[in-house]
């Protein structure tokens, strides 16, 4: 498994509306690793994640996920996807949301309680999602992605709006999952989170700017911390 790629894009091109959003993108996500997806707003992170999850129409190129074409029927229970907007039902309780998605995914009956603990929402199980805080709501959405036994998790900014303690908790959860062999593709705007990844992919204007380890990124940009490295890359100082 060491060298296997959970996600492999070759010449991936995606058009949204009339604009080409991803241009001839080639990249790989090693199986069993945590890969951070970084880049300025509008650089195409969500579009790439939608493509991997199978909900984005692709113009050209190939995209293989767990050895199959992205969006294949048999991937549907093997890939967990949490969208940036947190797609859950506001007019259901936390538990009802988890129970419904667990049924849809064919997950074991005990899964909702396991997930409630993992995203630290046990005290809110019976509250309506629409009345939760932004961070609590996004944790419900993350919880849905954790149901069943996904081999690949595609998480679009899962830690937005969370305090540092919760964020650290979630990143340890991501690490534990990766240790179990799960692959995680996680987008983020918070640079200190990048340090917790095995590899970092940086997108700018729909093209891959860097595919590095956190240390390699610092060395490449000659900077001391991830924030400066990002500024150097996003500002175009390193080609």
């Amino acid at each position, binding site marked *: 498994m060491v060298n296997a790629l959970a996600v492999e894009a070759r010449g991936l091109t995606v058009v949204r509306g009339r604009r080409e959003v991803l241009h001839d993108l080639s990249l790989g996500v090693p199986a069993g690793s945590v890969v951070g997806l970084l880049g300025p707003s509008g650089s195409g992170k969500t579009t790439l994640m939608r493509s991997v999850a199978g909900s984005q129409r692709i113009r050209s190129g190939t995209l293989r996920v767990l050895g199959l074409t992205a969006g294949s029927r048999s991937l549907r229970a093997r890939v967990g996807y949490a*969208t940036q907007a947190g797609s859950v039902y506001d007019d259901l309780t936390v538990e009802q949301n988890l129970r419904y998605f667990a049924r849809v995914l064919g997950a074991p009956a005990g899964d909702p309680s396991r997930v409630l603990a993992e995203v630290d929402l046990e005290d809110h199980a019976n509250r309506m999602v629409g009345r939760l805080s932004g961070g609590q709501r996004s944790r419900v959405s993350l919880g849905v992605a954790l149901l069943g036994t996904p081999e690949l998790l595609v998480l679009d900014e899962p830690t937005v709006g969370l305090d540092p303690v919760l964020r650290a908790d979630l990143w340890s959860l991501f690490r534990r999952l990766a240790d179990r062999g799960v692959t995680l593709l996680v987008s983020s705007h918070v640079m200190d989170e990048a340090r917790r990844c095995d590899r970092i992919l940086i997108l700018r204007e729909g093209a891959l700017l860097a595919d590095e380890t956190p240390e390699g990124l610092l060395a490449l940009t000659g900077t001391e911390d991830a924030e400066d490295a990002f500024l150097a890359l996003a500002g175009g100082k390193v080609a």
Partner: protein
Amino acid sequence: MNPRLTAATTRRVLEQIRHDPRTVGLLLVVPSLLIGLMAWIFNDGRLFSAVGPDLLGLFPFIIMFLITSITTLRERRSGTLERLMTTPLGRFDFIVGYAIAFGLLAVVQSLIAVGFAVWVCGLSVQGNAWLLVLVAVANALLGTTLGLFASAFAATEFQVVQFMPLLVFPQALLGGIFVPRDRMPDVLRAISDWLPLTHAIEAFQHAAGTTDSGSVLREVAVVLAWAVAFTALGSVTLRRRTA
């Protein structure tokens, strides 16, 4: 289609509605209120018995159309539909799950509306009153499935509301509620022959005014065929991949 996933979806939709008691109340009571108002306006049992069946056909249809199209539009806009489409849930599981949930509500709504029209407002029924309930349920299902289909073409709630005058009012006008169909120009009459609401209204007229249950069931079959067609069309509009 997978019955387990369909049932899970029906249950989820009903859970959502249960959290909104005001909608449930409006859904169940409003058709009866409108029918009561009409009975009062006509203030004449014979005249009311002539239009009562049309109203039974119209109000639940409109209400179910609006509720379903807005609920499914919300599902498209909130991203939950996109998420569901990345799971093993099938398109028919989604649509049929919705249709069953709203169909169950329609049964309760129809029982109340028909009961109110017959026992409180004095609508005279020549045939079997249960047949009237059957027609009402079929008609509410028609509204539900048309709403599911129409929501695919609306980007906002405002647009959905505009579909009322576009898709529903012409059918009501051509269905013979205001001018009997045999007095319409030939072209309009030919068009109205094809419209689903026309058959729903005919079914109500036959059920209330005749003892000919065969012709009622024939019209109900046409209404249900349209409901199936809208379900199929609606499922085509559900895309796993979007641009």
